[in-house]
């Protein structure tokens, strides 16, 4: 009987051990010394990371972008060049900024052919003539070169999109508004334009006419004088205007060489304040005239920004990214897109008060 009791006790012990063992198993995974990690679920990396690297790899090729101004060696297009160069530096692309020495479509065609021979990836052109350039640009397109326009457009069939500085309607109406404000909404005025064939200039002039008809019946447009973006020719044109129209009250320059030439002519004729000069030109060219009073206002956008934006959009196009409305372009700001026209922003007005803020 005694041994039986011991036997039972031993069984109890076994049972206890079994229960303890099972409890230990249950809690065994808890007791560890060092920190250990066991991955349960791994999420896919955020998409941004993945798309960034392949495109980085893809554009290891440096794009060659040819930018063609209407003419070289005038202040406006030089400033555009600065902006384009800045963008080329920022984006690491090759920039070929080549233009004709005179604002002549045929000469521009030669420049474009030269770029085609250099096998650029993109040609961005500020067209001297919207029609004459079409065949050569189509030729370039057939060669696999992508074509955009900036500053001055061509026929839409020749290019993919047009980088415009400002809305032509806003700009044209605003140019007349600045003149009307300085000459008291009445009197005679003349327009000094670049090339009679340049599409952008003609559109602005159209809007100037519309604005005059709509709001300023007291004002009269007497003549439109082309200067082919040649400062000398412009000066001669201005002098001629002052001679032909002794009662002239204002001059609007729609290309950058116009207003300084007009101001110069007005100063020479000692009619400063009498003949008001406004128009599209750079602050640098206009600064002294604005301070003296021989010109009242200049209007422009930042040509640097235009050059910068053109190069950025050309490269984005090569990367497969077409511009869209309200897109934010780094170092430029938001752009707007109307159909195939990109608008860089609002025009800037320069007066004697603020002209010193600008360095172009």
């Amino acid at each position, binding site marked *: 009987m005694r041994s*039986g009791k011991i*036997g039972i006790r031993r069984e109890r012990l076994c*049972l206890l051990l079994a229960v303890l063992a099972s409890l230990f198993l249950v809690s065994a995974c808890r007791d560890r010394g060092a*920190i250990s990690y066991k991955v*349960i679920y791994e999420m896919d990396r955020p998409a941004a990371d993945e798309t960034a690297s392949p495109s980085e790899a893809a554009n290891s090729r440096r794009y060659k972008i040819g930018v063609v101004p209407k003419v070289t060696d005038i202040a406006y297009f030089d400033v555009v060049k600065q902006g384009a160069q800045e963008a080329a530096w920022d984006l690491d692309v090759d920039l070929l900024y080549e233009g004709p020495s005179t604002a002549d479509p045929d000469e521009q065609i030669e420049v474009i052919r030269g770029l085609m021979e250099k096998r650029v990836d993109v040609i961005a052109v500020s067209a001297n003539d919207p029609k004459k350039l079409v065949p050569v640009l189509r030729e370039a397109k057939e060669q696999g070169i992508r074509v955009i326009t900036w500053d001055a457009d061509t026929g839409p069939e020749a290019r993919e999109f047009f980088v415009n500085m400002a809305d032509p309607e806003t700009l044209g109406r605003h140019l007349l508004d600045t003149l009307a404000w300085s000459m008291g909404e009445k009197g005679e005025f003349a327009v000094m334009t670049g090339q009679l064939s340049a599409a952008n200039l003609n559109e602005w002039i159209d809007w100037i006419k519309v604005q005059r008809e709509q709001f300023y019946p007291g004002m009269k447009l007497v003549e439109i004088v082309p200067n082919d973006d040649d400062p000398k020719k412009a000066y001669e044109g201005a002098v001629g205007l002052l001679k032909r129209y002794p009662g002239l009250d204002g001059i609007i320059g729609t290309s950058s060489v116009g207003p300084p030439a007009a101001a110069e002519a007005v100063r020479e004729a000692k009619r400063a304040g009498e003949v008001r000069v406004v128009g599209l030109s750079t602050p640098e060219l206009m600064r002294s005239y604005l301070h003296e009073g021989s010109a009242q206002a200049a209007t422009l956008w930042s040509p*640097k920004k235009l050059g910068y934006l053109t190069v950025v959009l050309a490269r984005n196009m090569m990367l497969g990214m077409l511009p869209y409305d309200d897109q934010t372009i780094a170092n430029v700001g938001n752009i707007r897109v109307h159909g195939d026209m990109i608008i860089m922003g609002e025009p800037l007005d320069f007066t004697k008060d*603020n002209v010193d803020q600008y360095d172009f």
Partner: protein
Amino acid sequence: MISRIRERLRFRNVRLSAKLIVTYLLLTVIPMSLLGYVSYVQYTKSIEEQIGEYMPRFLYQANANIEKHVSELEALPDLLFNSDDMIAILRRDPALQSRAEQNRDLFTLNSYMARTYLGGGNPDVLGVFLLSKSRLFESTRLRYSGFGRNEAIAPYRYDVDARDKGKLILPSETGLRFENNAPYVLVMKEILDTDNRRVLGTMFIAVQMTFIDRILRDFETNDRADLWVMNRKGEIVYHTDPEKIGTFDPNVAGYPILSGSFRTNAAGGSARLVSLSESAQLGWVLVHSIPLKDLTERADLVRNVTIFVFVGIVLVTTVLSVLFSLSITRPLKKLSRLMKNAEMGRFQVDHSLQSRDEVGSLARSFNSMITTTRELIQTNYRIEIRQKEAELYALQSQINPHFIYNTLETISMAVEEGESESVVDMVTLLGRMLRFSVGNKSKTVPLAEEIQHVRDYLTIQKFRFEERLAFDIALNVDLEGRTLYSPKFILQPIVENAIKHGLERRGRLGIHIGIGKEISARSGKQDIVFRIRDDGPGIPADRLAELEHELRSESHLAKDSGLGLGNVNARIVLLHGPEYGLQLHSIDGKGTEVIVRIPAIARPVETPRSDREEGE
């Protein structure tokens, strides 16, 4: 020693009760505990996996919200461009200005920033700083220190690599401290004059992280869960525990992934489930960490209840199994004790084992076996005693000094009378009788020998008593030619008794012995019947009844007078059953007849009958 232990542990050597208990435990405890353990582990694992998969997705969403908010914050500096005047101030070169002009510009721009950034829609903005080439404009909600022109922000003055894109600066990277140590991050952005293509300055907007609080507020209600935002180096930008904002997460280097979930077992702490989501845009990691215990709270409750119930069941069933095995082994032990007793010769019957099961029936069989054995032993014992008595008696009667003396005297008389023939006969007869009585040890002898023996006896007595004694032995013809057996010494005691009583009272005696076959009225078998008839004085009726009673009651052993008849009867009954034995018929004064009935058997009987109980 080891081998002894192994020997001890060998299963077949273990006690039956232990075997039963161990088997029972193996069949219940182990499967139950395994099942419980496996299902618990699987359940907690699936909870872990579910949370581990769901949480990073949520964090990813929360991260997207934070990113959106941060990009809104990054757009704040652009508000400056809404005012041409402010841009004009920044474009101015202070070196060309008078002190008063400089201070006017400072005042104008500071109040513009206060209006634009601190008033109205941005409650999170703590302060704005604008660092230009030579000036510092600032406007803050709280007092601050450590953010002068030449102080800790110096490295950030102009080197914003990702232009136009905001950069977030954490407190550890600058010396800027607000009063009350309010937590903040700095959104740094370069102010670029897009028209002149020039950098005007750098704007720093100090923002509280309360927006993260708003994003995460409704998300986690568990107090023990931690949510924090840190950069890749582990600096904590935001934490549900405000104390920890600005500190570093020491474990960040060990985290195996930054987007996903993992389980961590910190030393000393409890295991935690950590879920993270990394913002590619900000380089921030949103972390959610919760003790596993909280996730598996319900499973743990179920587990604990299960363990308690399990232990309870195990205890109850163990007691039951012990009781059950005892209920089997206790009767077996009792039985084995009885067997041991039987082995020692104590044939006891224990009627306490009355259960109806196999053990009970075994006990009953054993009991009946013990009973039978005991009876057999007693029977054998008695037969043996009778046999010994009979042999003793036979020896006594043959070497009876009286008989030998009488016989020798008769012989000597015959010698004197010169009847040498008779002498030779008598000596021969005496010798044969002595040989018969000592020669054969078996209990039965051939019938012829038994008859020869009684004939020898009577012949010797005839020599002695001459004409006073007459006898004849009639052997029926149907018994000749067959060897039949009879118990030894059954006739001589009867004849001796008849001579003794007959010649005591009368001068003459005639004895007739008839031997024949008769069919038993009871069994219908052929029996051998001896009839010993004498013409002696007979037995009075009361004495006859007494004798009959003594024959049946077996109490004759003590009595000398009845020794012969009782012994013969008892031996026959023991050997052949109660239907055989002696019968007495007597008429007082006329004579007595003793009838001896034995079965007709053709073989010697060596052992007493074992099937005696059949007749009882």
